[in-house]
């Protein structure tokens, strides 16, 4: 494997736990272990890119030369509120209902 400055961080299950937390994906212990090995293998395989000389090469975001497209500022009929809320898991009085942000009995996060 090529030397690079990226192989000093966490790996395996430890890495999976921190990424799962960042991504807000709950995980069982079995998943953490399974994903740990798989992620290490995938990261090792994509690290092959470090071999390519990219000095002074501009990055490509997408393949066509279209950037910052604006439309005319013309008002359009929006979707109805009921229509939008029809897919919401929980709605009340015309609003999407969310869970407690800080927990029912807590005052601090």
């Amino acid at each position, binding site marked *: 494997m090529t030397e690079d400055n990226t192989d000093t961080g966490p790996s395996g299950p430890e890495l999976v736990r921190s990424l799962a937390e960042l991504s807000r994906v709950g995980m069982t212990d079995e998943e953490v272990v399974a994903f740990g090995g798989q992620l290490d293998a995938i*990261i090792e395989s994509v690290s092959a*890119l470090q071999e390519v000389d990219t000095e002074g090469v501009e990055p490509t975001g997408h393949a066509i030369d279209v950037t910052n497209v604006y439309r005319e500022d013309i008002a359009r009929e929006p979707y109805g509120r009921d229509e939008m809320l*029809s897919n919401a898991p929980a709605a009340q009085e015309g609003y999407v209902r969310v869970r407690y942000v800080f927990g029912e009995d807590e005052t601090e996060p």
Partner: protein
Amino acid sequence: MTSSDNLYHLAAHEASRLLAAGEISAVELTEAVLSRIEAVDSQVRGLVTVTAEQARSTAQEADRRIKEGNATPLTGIPLVLKDNMCTEGIATTCSSRMLESFVPPYTATAAQKLLDAGAVMVGKSNMDEFAMGSSTENSAFFPTHNPWDSGRVPGGSSGGSAATVAAGETLIALGSDTGGSIRQPASFCGVVGIKPTYGTVSRYGLIAFASSLDQIGPLTSNVTDAALTLNTISGYDSMDSTSINRDTPDYTRALVPDVRGMKIGVVKEMFGEGVEPQVRDTVLEAARVLEQAGAIVDWEVSLSLTEYALPVYYILAPSEASSNLARYDGVKYGYSWDGAADMWEGMERTRQHGFGPEVKRRILLGAYALSSGYYDAYYRKAQQVRTLIRREYEDAFTRFDVLLTPTSPTLPFGLGERTNDPLAMYLADICTIPVNIAGVPAVSLPCGFVDGLPVGLQLIGPSLGEESIIRAAYTYEQATDWHTMRPRLGYRF
């Protein structure tokens, strides 16, 4: 394995001719396809939703329209949409628990254009969850089976669309292609699939996976039908910020059986290690057919960066996915885990139970590549190598009209064979991924059979060079009869 007289195995352009001549009706054609679905989909499992009732009423409208004389070439033609394209009032699941109950309030532009043309939607097709996969085994509902051998995968992620076309459960279908998801299943199922130039077909209403790579395209039983479908779905859409604003060419004008003087390059890196010898030989034989038809073939073209396309893809696509899929939090729509004490637990449990393993893997991988400290080494680096790959293709197309490769390095593999090894699954796309990275168009079409399993030929064109690949594909198709082969299905009943 012979062509059938059954209506459900008609080419769409042939059905269109019969409809216009009054020899068949759209209702008859739709009923034939719905009966076929009834007869074989329990074997194929290509469809997540069958829209029989709506199809019957659309077919009646189509017959009226044909009688009134304002039909299009696709009026009355049965259509299947991949289930990541929004359809107003009809569930759009992305084959995910997360969207199992999602009923969109609007229809995707590409789908709407086909419906406006009078196509008859008969169902929505199974796919790898959120289009992540190469076998359709990542569907949260059930795997789809290859119509040529029910023990094998149909490819993916548009496996349901490819399989239903092959099985006669529809005449045309739409798929989406981020790294090969139209072409590889087309290859595995023995049908034609086109991934257009990025920006040709609107992505509005296509549930996002990797937005800088996703592109919708047709899956059909022959090249003519693919050109007809592409004609209908292409074009500028102000609702897609990367839609190309230009006049859409008439792709059917490229249906010319003549490649004399056309310069075709055989990409040697895509015939090397990992490519099954029988696949290699079959595809090289297809190149010889084009050479005999008058094409000038260079058998040793090198695209030296080919091996880096896969790592570029597996950094960029998961990065974009981890960002795109952040919206699934169980609040506004989709699955929501019951019983959480607070917002964070609700979100974590919703995403834990709503997403399958491959989706989670890619979210984690994307979060890794985008996190501070790794961003330059992975995400930015991958975008730079993408520039180099684009340049390499641009350079090749100063010398060649079309590049030729296998679509898939292997024959369709067995169900369950690669599900425990994500890296092995990723290798299924080594010949198709570079095309998405470069943003150029490509077609896969059947070019032979090995042990009764279809092999696909991939023809790659320059940016906006759809006409070149359609012309080469059509010439090949006219010189061979692989596109007339049909799988033996339904005989077990």
